[in-house]
């Protein structure tokens, strides 16, 4: 009735059930959009682009085929190239750019190693830092560290002394030998991406006041 019409909430109750329901649903939509400050309802999530989906599927398939490979099977990486080595040990070579070599003071140097899934129990690993023998072509052991690898993951080793001694050489190169138990195969992760390859973080102070931090 006209008298009820002036109450904003009274008019709706006077409608017949069908139109009343439509009016209430329209009221609900309008108040939600108004309070979310949206001019209209969003179109909903867009499916990812076909190209991105295919790339992701291809990468997943590649990972799965890698996983099918025997555990511990190494693939050549860029950071540490493998040299011919006895079945029990792996050699890693780290080269430093001339820019870092030119700097005089090594503030810190840390070797990062990511262990693949070791066998049951702790696995003993010997890490030797080798340096060229001034008297001949061979390498001498600058330091030796024994590690107990309990589980997969990153291990760090302070190699500051060895890296400091490199910068007397014409080509500063750090050689690391990893010796592992006979049946363990190779300790490093067989990961096709470089994210798990061994690397050395060095912080050096150059002659000029700014710092050089290289990975």
């Amino acid at each position, binding site marked *: 009735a006209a008298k009820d019409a002036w109450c904003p*909430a*009274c008019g709706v109750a006077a409608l017949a059930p069908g139109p009343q329901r439509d009016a*209430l*649903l329209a009221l609900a939509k309008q108040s*939600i959009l108004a*309070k979310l400050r949206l001019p209209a309802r969003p179109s*909903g999530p867009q499916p990812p682009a076909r190209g991105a989906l295919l790339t992701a599927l291809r990468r997943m398939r590649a990972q799965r085929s890698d996983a099918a490979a025997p555990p511990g099977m190494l693939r050549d990486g860029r950071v540490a190239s493998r040299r011919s080595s006895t079945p029990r040990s792996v050699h890693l070579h780290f080269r430093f750019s001339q820019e870092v070599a030119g700097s005089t003071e090594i503030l810190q140097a840390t070797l990062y190693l990511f262990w693949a899934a070791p066998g049951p129990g702790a696995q003993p690993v010997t890490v030797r830092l080798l340096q060229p023998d001034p008297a001949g072509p061979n390498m001498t052991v600058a330091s030796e560290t024994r590690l107990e690898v309990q589980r997969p993951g990153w291990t760090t080793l302070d190699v500051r002394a060895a890296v400091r001694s490199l910068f007397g050489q014409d080509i500063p190169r750090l050689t690391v030998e990893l010796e592992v138990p006979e049946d363990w195969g190779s300790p490093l992760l067989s990961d096709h991406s470089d994210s798990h390859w061994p690397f050395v973080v060095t912080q050096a102070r150059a002659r000029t006041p700014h710092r050089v931090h290289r990975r």
Partner: protein
Amino acid sequence: GIDCGGDSRMCCRQEFFVDFKEIGWEDWIIQPDGYHMNYCAGLCPLHMAGVPGLAASFHTAVLNRIKAASAAAAVDSCCVPTQRRPLSLLYYDRDSNIVKTDIPDMIVDSCGCT
């Protein structure tokens, strides 16, 4: 306040559920599936003016009788929400980001006469 039911014609709260699937909004509103909007309906005769709902005390009932007897300007009052709650939404915005927000005063909990 009181919930509408039976043949009461006085001011009360009417249950009303908005189902987002029914209005075709289920693709952009992740949670909830809908919400109890509810609304107020019913008569607010003069002597009921100004009291929240009809669950009045004895004191209010006597006061109302006096008001009714006073026959002042015969203008009814209005049946409106007296308590409301926010609605929490999880939804995709226009850039397909997932947003969680609380919209105030969206759910009517009780009604009364102005």
